């Protein structure tokens, strides 16, 4: 409606201009015609006047000449008296009268001439009178009288007057003529001028009309462009689009129509405008995600509802980006979109050039359409949300109703249970009453006992509190007291030292010995106090561990410095060794480690009389370091080994006295070791020596420090067996992104997807593919690969198996199981040999790394050729002719050619001579069975046989199915729906066909089959009921020389093991065991195996679909050596098998 009114407004405006133009044009021509007419009239009037003047003048002359004729006639008569002379006279009179009458008519228009004429008439009349009189005199008086009459000169005077009068009139007429002439000249001048003006105006008008016409045409063109644009916009916005999609459609439409390189669309909702989409703006550009009314220019536009144009905006206002660079548009248009006159979206467009008005018109006129489309999209989204909500509510309702059913059932059950129990209760009540009295008696006894117990318990509690307090007192006391003791001891030590040194030399030798004894006793006392203090600090939890990097060689060097002199003094060998496998430095509290080691070493030196003391540092298990002090001293008895670490205990009470020391050192060391997250262990033999081992983590971790009580438990041996489950190696970092063609795709060219995490190799493949006319995209991870394959639909794929996130085989499997990607030929390239698996999963070929460039080129060329040949050939092996024709008819299509054969011999012959993409095989054939055909084909190693679809009318036993699975992954039993499935399967295979492999490549594969010496000839029992899993497991293991045995459940596995133990079959080396199986599950089977000594050591790897730690623990608890989570990762499976395979 709005659009229509705008147009009609424009039209009425245009037509008004047209009317005005028309009026002006007509008026112009009328006026110029009138001017011309007037000019002509003027000229004509003047000319008429001149002509009249001319007639007057001639008439005047005629009057005069008539008068003269009359006078001449009169004179003749007067002289002759003959009447013949009277004739000219009367003619003259008559003529003059005539002329006078004419003159009267001619002069009647002018007042002056009229007066003059009157006078002339009088004079002429008077002259006529006089001549009449003279004539009369002649007649009567004769000649003399007549001459006398003449002599009066009256006649002459009158005549002169007449002449004069004629002259006057002549002058007057001449004056008039002059005037007329001037007027006529003026008029003709005016006519010329007006003609010039008219023609000039005519030209101007024509030009104006031309301009108007051009303008009109142009505006119509614009109008048409606008209408076409609006119609196309309408088309672009059609369909069930989300707001974001709609935004994208609108922006790309506007981009296409207006040439705007960048744009953004914001959708408003409740006063807030959120960005719905952007176009041409780089991802990292600083474009606001939303704005509110009146916020910034956009907000302004949202409020005003009018288009805003900004020219020559400063650089950096908005950027346009592509992979090649970015630029900043200099002109911006911000336009609102409206629905029901309310702004519900704002579009911002950037331009490099100033903005054309027609763009603004388009934005203005499309405003409503865009607004309404966006509003509809919003409504659709709401509707979608509402639908989802409804679905959710329906589920919720269903859940509630299920719950109600449960409660209902429970209530019913409870009701019947209640009834039953009521009867029982009644019975019991009687019994109860009887026992009641007995109980009452017992209760009394119990009460007394209880009171006693309570008293005892109160006493105990009191004691416990006292003990606790006492312990606290002890700790506090020790801490305080030892401090207090140290101060006086210090001075005692210094002074006794001074005395013992005897600097003045005034003491006797005995006095010096006394002083030295005082000093050494003081030292012992100080050590004891220090130890007590340390121990009490540790017990009170006042020790803090300060971890720092400790270089091992420095640690040992320092210890050597301290202990070498002592060892030398005692005549002992001291050896400090750092083993190669131990870390160069560890993260721990150096002071505490030193304290422990010093204690251990001084003990060792102390208790060793001869021989050596040795400190060795070695790595112990995962992330641990073992520091071992070995001596050849007196040793410790087994019984004492437990107690030496307890405070105030020593191996022998007498030791303290014999060797000195407080006996607290080991307690402190053990406590410190615990605080460091480690432990001290001792091995010793009396008389042979002792070995103390301090094991601490290479990296101190406060969270792993055991609490004190646990530390008293026997310390764990530090050397642990390797952890049972191997972790996947950490994902390799993503490859640096490789320049590929994803941003510059040309739809005409074939696209190759290279899935490879090694950037170098990827770029080699990429370059090579360019040479062969492919475009190339590189994906570095499995996920990216799958996304790209889905989004870009490449024509072919080169796939590396070793990807950082998932195995490439997963990618292959995924792509071959998606409708939109399964037809894409995939060529696998890998560092490890997994050719069989890859080909089984549908790869068209396999290359092993390292790959030569020529081989790679061949592969790509092969892909190219594969893409070029579109005709597919299907071989149908079926003996029944009717059936064969039916299948052929079913499968035949434009690009599928079918060939039917009825016998095995014919089939083999054809397969050897012609290539086929797929084969449909009936098992029952006249000359041989389908089974033998398949076996023969698989042994024919010179050529790859096409994928086989078994199409059979008979039911298969499990064994038969298992056998067929080796050759065919698709088995169809004929039935009502089988044609449908056959068509489906065939079309699948036709697109994932294994290309004919060159013999060289096949030989390579053959060779690769026997590569794994660790697995060659080993027997693996696969216990798994899922045919697909069995197939994939065997296809991984068999190419490596493994002899796979298959059991379908736990019981079968046990039977087979039994058979092999009896010597009926060769022994099994390793078992792969599924958990979830019929008859007997995997866990039960493993338990049964472990309970039998024959298989107690047989390696078992469990395959479980369960993910929880305790599920996996269950496997290990049942006796499995290791487990593997499904879905099965081929690489991991192989490494597990290699790890556990007995050597």
């Amino acid at each position: 409606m709005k659009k229509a009114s705008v147009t009609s407004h424009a039209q009425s405006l245009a037509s008004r201009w047209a009317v005005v133009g028309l009026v002006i044009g007509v008026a112009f021509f009328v006026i110029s015609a009138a001017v011309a007419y007037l000019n002509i009239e003027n000229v004509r009037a003047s000319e008429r006047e001149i002509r009249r003047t001319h007639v007057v003048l001639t008439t005047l002359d005629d009057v005069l000449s008539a008068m003269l004729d009359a006078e001449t006639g009169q004179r003749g008569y007067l002289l002759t008296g003959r009447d013949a002379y009277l004739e000219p006279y009367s003619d003259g009179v008559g003529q003059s009268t005539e002329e006078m009458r004419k003159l009267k008519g001619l002069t009647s228009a002018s007042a002056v001439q009229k007066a003059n004429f009157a006078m002339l008439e009088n004079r002429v009349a008077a002259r006529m009178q006089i001549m009449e009189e003279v004539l009369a005199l002649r007649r009567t008086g004769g000649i003399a009288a007549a001459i006398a009459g003449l002599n009066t000169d009256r006649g002459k005077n009158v005549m002169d007057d007449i002449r004069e009068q004629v002259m006057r009139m002549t002058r007057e007429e001449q004056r008039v003529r002059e005037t007329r002439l001037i007027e006529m000249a003026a008029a003709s001048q005016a006519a010329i001028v007006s003609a010039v003006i008219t023609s000039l105006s005519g030209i101007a008008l024509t030009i104006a009309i031309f301009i108007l016409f051009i303008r009109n045409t142009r505006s119509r063109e614009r109008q048409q462009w606008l209408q076409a644009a609006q119609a196309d916009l309408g088309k672009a916005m059609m369909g069930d689009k989300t707001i974001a999609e709609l935004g994208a459609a609108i922006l790309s439409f506007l981009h296409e129509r207006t040439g705007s390189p960048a744009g953004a669309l914001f959708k408003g909702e409740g006063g807030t405008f959120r960005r719905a989409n952007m176009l041409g703006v780089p991802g990292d550009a600083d474009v606001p995600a939303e704005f509110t009314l009146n916020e910034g220019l956009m907000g302004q536009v949202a409020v005003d509802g009018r288009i805003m144009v900004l020219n020559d905006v400063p650089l950096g206002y908005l950027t346009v980006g592509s992979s090649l660079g970015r630029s900043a548009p200099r002109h911006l248009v911000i336009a609102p979109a409206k629905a029901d006159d309310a702004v519900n979206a704002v579009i911002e467009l950037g331009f490099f050039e100033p903005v054309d008005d027609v763009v603004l018109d388009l934005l203005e006129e499309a405003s409503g359409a865009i607004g309404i489309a966006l509003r509809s999209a919003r409504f659709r989204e709401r509707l979608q949300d509402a639908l989802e909500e409804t679905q959710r509510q329906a589920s919720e309702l269903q859940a509630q109703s299920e719950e109600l059913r449960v409660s209902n059932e429970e209530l019913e059950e409870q009701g019947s249970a209640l009834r039953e129990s009521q009867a029982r209760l009644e019975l019991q009540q009687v019994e109860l009453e009887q026992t009641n009295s007995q109980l009452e008696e017992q209760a009394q006894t119990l009460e007394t006992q209880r009171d006693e117990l309570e008293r005892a318990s109160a006493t105990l509690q009191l004691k416990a509190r006292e003990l606790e307090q006492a312990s606290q007192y002890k700790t506090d006391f020790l801490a305080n007291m030892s401090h207090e003791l140290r101060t006086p001891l210090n001075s005692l030590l210094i002074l006794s030292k001074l005395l013992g040194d005897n600097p003045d030399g005034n003491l006797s030798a005995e006095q010096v010995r006394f002083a030295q004894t005082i000093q050494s006793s003081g030292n012992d006392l100080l050590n004891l106090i220090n130890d007590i203090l340390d121990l009490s600090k540790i017990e009170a939890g006042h020790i803090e561990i300060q971890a720092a990097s400790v270089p091992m060689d420095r640690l040992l060097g320092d210890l050597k410095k301290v202990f070498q002199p002592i060892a030398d003094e005692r005549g002992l060998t001291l050896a400090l060794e750092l083993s190669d496998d131990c870390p160069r430095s560890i993260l721990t509290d150096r002071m505490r480690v030193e304290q422990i080691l010093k204690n251990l070493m001084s003990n060792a030196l102390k208790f060793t009389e001869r021989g050596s003391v040795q400190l060795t540092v070695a790595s112990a298990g995962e992330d641990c370091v073992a520091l071992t002090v070995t001596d050849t001293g007196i040793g410790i008895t087994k019984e004492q080994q437990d107690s030496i670490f307890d405070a105030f205990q020593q191996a022998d009470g007498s030791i303290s006295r014999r060797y000195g020391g407080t006996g607290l050192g080991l307690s402190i060391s053990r406590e410190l070791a615990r605080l460091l997250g480690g432990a001290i262990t001792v091995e010793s033999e009396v008389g042979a020596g002792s070995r103390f081992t301090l094991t601490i983590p290479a990296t101190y971790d406060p969270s792993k420090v055991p609490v004190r009580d646990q530390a008293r438990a026997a310390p764990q041996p530090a050397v642990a067996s390797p952890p049972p489950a191997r972790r996947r190696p950490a994902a390799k970092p993503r490859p640096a992104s490789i320049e590929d063609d994803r941003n510059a795709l040309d739809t005409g060219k074939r696209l190759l997807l290279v899935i490879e995490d090694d950037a170098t190799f990827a770029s080699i493949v990429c370059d090579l593919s360019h040479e062969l006319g492919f475009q190339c995209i590189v994906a570095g991870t499995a996920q990216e690969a799958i996304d790209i394959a889905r989004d870009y639909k490449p024509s072919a794929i080169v796939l590396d198996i070793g990807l950082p996130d998932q195995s490439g085989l997963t990618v292959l499997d995924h792509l071959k199981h998606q409708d939109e990607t399964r037809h894409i030929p995939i060529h696998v390239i890998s560092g490890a040999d997994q050719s069989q698996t890859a080909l089984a999963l549908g790869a068209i070929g396999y290359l092993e790394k390292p790959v030569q460039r020529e081989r790679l080129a061949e592969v790509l060329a092969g892909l190219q050729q594969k893409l070029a040949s579109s005709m597919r050939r299907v071989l149908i092996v079926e003996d029944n002719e009717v059936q064969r024709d039916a299948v052929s008819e079913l499968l035949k299509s434009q690009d599928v050619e079918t060939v039917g054969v009825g016998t095995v011999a014919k089939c083999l012959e054809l397969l050897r001579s012609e290539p086929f993409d797929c084969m449909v095989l009936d098992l029952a054939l006249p000359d041989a069975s389908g089974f033998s055909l398949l076996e023969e084909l698989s042994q024919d190693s010179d050529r790859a046989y096409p994928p086989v679809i078994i199409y059979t009318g008979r039911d298969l036993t499990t064994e038969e199915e298992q056998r067929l699975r080796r050759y065919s992954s698709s088995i169809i039993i004929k039935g009502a729906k089988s044609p449908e499935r056959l068509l489906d399967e065939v079309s699948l295979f036709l697109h994932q066909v294994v290309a004919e492999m060159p013999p060289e490549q096949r030989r390579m594969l053959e060779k690769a089959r026997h590569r794994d010496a660790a697995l060659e000839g080993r027997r693996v029992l696969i216990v798994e009921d899922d045919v697909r899993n069995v197939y994939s497991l065997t296809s991984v293991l068999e190419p490596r020389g493994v002899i796979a045995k298959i059991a379908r459940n736990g019981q079968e596995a046990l039977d087979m093991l039994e058979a092999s133990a009896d010597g009926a079959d060769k022994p099994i080396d390793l078992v792969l065991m599924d958990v979830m199986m019929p008859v007997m599950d995997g866990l039960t089977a493993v338990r049964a195996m472990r309970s039998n000594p024959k298989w107690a050591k047989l390696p078992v790897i469990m395959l479980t679909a369960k993910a929880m730690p305790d599920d996996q623990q269950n496997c290990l608890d049942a006796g499995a050596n290791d487990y593997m989570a499904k879905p099965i990762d081929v690489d991991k499976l192989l490494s597990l098998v290699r790890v556990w395979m007995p050597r």
Partner: protein
Amino acid sequence: MDAALVTSSIEDIEIQLLLEALYQHYHYDFRHYARASIKRRLLQARAQLGYGSISEIQAAVLRDSTLLPRLLDFLTVQVSEMFRDPSYFRALREKVIPHLHTYPSLKVWVAGCSNGEELYSLAILFHEEGLAKKTMFYATDINPTALKAAQAGVYSLDRIRLFTENHQASGGRSSLSDYYTANYGRAVFDKSLCSQVVFSDHSLVTDAAFAEMHLISCRNVLIYFDRDLQDRAVGLFRDSLARRGFLGLGSKESLRFSSHADAFADFVREEKIYQRTGS
């Protein structure tokens, strides 16, 4: 009003904590079950087990693992009947079974088998259609008590009447009584029905696909899950299904809003039977 709000929010926190505790200690993951339903059931459990608050249940169940089965019974809704929604089974019989006849061997997964009613229904249906011999059934649930009940296949006699009606309505070709023995107020279903059944503990929340299935029946399980968990479960079904395999859902469940909806096509729309597309 305010008090009610405060109570409810504390309850929500308690529920969250209890579910977290169950997950961390027992590895039962109910954290993504539909919260409203879990809440109702936990409140019911609190009332019936006689605890003052949900936190008390948490404290008790963490220390006393014997309480876990009882709590599981509350948390998992174990209710069904044989041939429930007979039209669903009729659709399986008439539309799906002909396709299944084309496979040499079959795998059927009853996910969330509860006390086994649905499993026995399918087993009987497959038996009647002559597929029983080549079919392997997998019956899974997270509740061990329910699994045991399913394995036992014992139902109270008064339910059998309804089962029989349903069976007939589903187009049954034999008499239901051929498959059970009734005695002592109970009906025991024929053990031969179970000879091709694997009962297993399997969680749709945490565990992976374990075999390639041709039919998955998972009825009235997804309704207890939130959106994310539904997506995970459906993803698991997608990964487990063979090409053109079938998935049957409950009458109020739908794949329409699932993020894996593209992987399935409506097969019998009104009965919520879907077919795996692609591959």
